């Protein structure tokens, strides 16, 4: 199950020229507003006909300018979750959910109403009208409607952008369930690093209509070269962790390669594998082992790369086992500590380093 895209299209502001492959799982299309993300998604869905290129899903060609092949949207079998939901106002929630179902034919066996309704928690809403739903409920119904059309690929164009933080937190777990519970590849457009860090298996970074970088999520988010594109607050590494134990003082102990991390109790049971994001700006570096310090989370590693920015800052990549942590420090500190590739050092994660919403399965604030 995969998607391959190669497109060229002239836009008023710039020329779009992208090519990428999306393996199974969630592929995040990341970039600033106006970097061409929605154009790419619309071209994949068939709502926009690009000047040239090629789009294929699971080996089925949807668009090929050289072969003059262009499938209209209704024959592409692609589910599209729009930013504004676009529910049909004249139909009930049930009517909306089943809208695409009737066109799905034989394929719909895999996407039963009960299962989708259960997964998204929308059973109590079935008889209601879209006008009576909250923003978060609308998006869940929109996701269900797309799923029930039995798509071979799911497109999500900033599905959370129109929602406030509380509603986002309400929907993210459903998206994770979707990622983990179905084998439909998802192309997920967003400019929010926190969302992407939590959901994406693969990241494609777009900038002014070009692909800046594509690769596994942890690799791309941990790439110091992308810090400018991700934004100072966006840059940060993702670590795979396992829940070791929940302690009596309210902390959960995680094991990562190279050490232990503590954070306020999270919902995942002991033994669960989760992802932890550590923002580069929340990491301090120390040459010697820090002593008598309030921070609980200290990992020992080796400097792999130091990348000076345009300003006074620098991005330091610290290898901890096979994983890496990004630290944003000043160039002055780099010089003072003599940080260079191969130098052993300690990465100190400040208490806020493990932020809510960035943790794989939803948790609360972190404290020291």
């Amino acid at each position, binding site marked *: 199950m995969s998607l391959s895209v190669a497109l060229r299209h002239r836009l008023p502001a710039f020329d779009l020229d992208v090519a990428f492959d999306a393996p199974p799982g969630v592929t995040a299309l990341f970039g600033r507003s106006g970097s061409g993300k929605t154009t790419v998604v619309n071209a994949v869905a*068939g709502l926009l006909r690009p000047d040239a290129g090629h789009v294929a899903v699971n080996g089925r060609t949807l668009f090929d300018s050289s072969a003059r092949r262009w499938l*209209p949207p*209704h024959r592409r079998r692609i589910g599209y979750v729009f930013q504004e939901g*676009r529910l*049909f106002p*004249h139909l*009930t929630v049930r009517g909306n959910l089943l*809208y695409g179902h009737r066109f799905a034919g034989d394929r719909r066996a895999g996407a039963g109403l009960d299962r989708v309704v259960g997964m998204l928690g929308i059973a109590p809403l079935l008889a209601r*009208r879209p*006008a009576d739903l909250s923003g978060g409920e609308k998006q869940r119904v929109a996701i269900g409607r797309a799923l029930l059309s039995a798509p071979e690929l799911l497109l999500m164009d900033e599905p959370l952008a129109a929602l406030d933080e509380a509603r986002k937190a309400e929907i993210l777990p459903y998206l994770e369930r979707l990622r983990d519970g179905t084998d439909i590849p998802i192309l997920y457009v967003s400019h929010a690093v926190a969302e992407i860090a939590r959901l994406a298996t693969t990241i494609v970074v777009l900038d002014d209509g070009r692909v800046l970088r594509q690769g596994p999520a942890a690799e791309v988010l941990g790439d110091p070269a992308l810090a400018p594109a991700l934004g100072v607050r966006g840059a940060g590494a993702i670590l795979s962790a396992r829940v070791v134990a929940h302690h009596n003082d309210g902390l959960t102990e995680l094991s990562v390669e190279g050490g232990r991390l503590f954070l306020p109790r999270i919902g995942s049971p002991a033994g669960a594998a989760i992802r932890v994001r550590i923002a580069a700006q929340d990491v301090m570096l120390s040459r010697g082992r820090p002593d008598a310090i309030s921070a609980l989370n200290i990992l020992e590693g080796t400097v792999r790369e130091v990348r000076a920015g345009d300003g006074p800052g620098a991005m330091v990549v610290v290898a901890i086992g096979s994983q890496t942590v990004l630290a944003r420090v000043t160039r002055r500190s780099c010089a003072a500590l003599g940080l260079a590739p191969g130098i052993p050092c300690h990465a100190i994660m400040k208490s806020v380093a493990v932020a809510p919403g960035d943790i794989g399965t939803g948790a609360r604030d972190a404290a020291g």
Partner: protein
Amino acid sequence: MDWLGPEEWQAVALSLRVSLWATLLSLPPGIFVAYALARWRFPGRQVLNGLVHLPLILPPVVTGYLLLLTFGTQGPVGGPLRDLGIVLAFRWTGAALAAGVMAFPLMVRAIRLSIEAVDPRLEQAAATLGASGPWVFATVTLPLILPGVVVGAILAFAKAMGEFGATITFVSNIPGQTQTLPSAIYAFLQVPGGEASALRLVVVSIAIAMTALLLSEVLATRIARRVRGA
């Protein structure tokens, strides 16, 4: 309704029949033309728009005369139709055609406005869910424009009920055949002692017009509420 004489009653019944058919038969082309004008960009779009609106601007006598030239038994369309056994001139069917043509611009305007109010992004969403063009129209566009269609149909019906100039030119004023309500009022006013009959028909006209207007208001709000799901 025994206060209406048989001749008067005949005119009312004929008018209702003519207007009903005129409205029903112009609905499908009315929706199609409204959709084309609202959504499609094609060469000749302004010409089509002008043609549709022509009966609204032309003197009705001119429209009636043009209909007579075209659909009369010697006309380019009326001739072949007569060979098929369909005669429009001086028949109630011709009255329905004249009423339909005169009411067409009103109907198209109302429907076109409601189509322009439909968010095309909803239609795109339907397409990504697997609905082909005709399905999108039948399951999304049409339900959403229903209030406009109802308003357009009732406006057209009311206009058809009142049509006089084009009808009398095209199909004349034959009692029981082409004498609609306005023609009958006109005829009664031409004969001595006919004023009482004319007045009774005037009352009927006002009643029908008011009912149509009220009905369109009630229906349109009710459908709009159901469509918006509020």
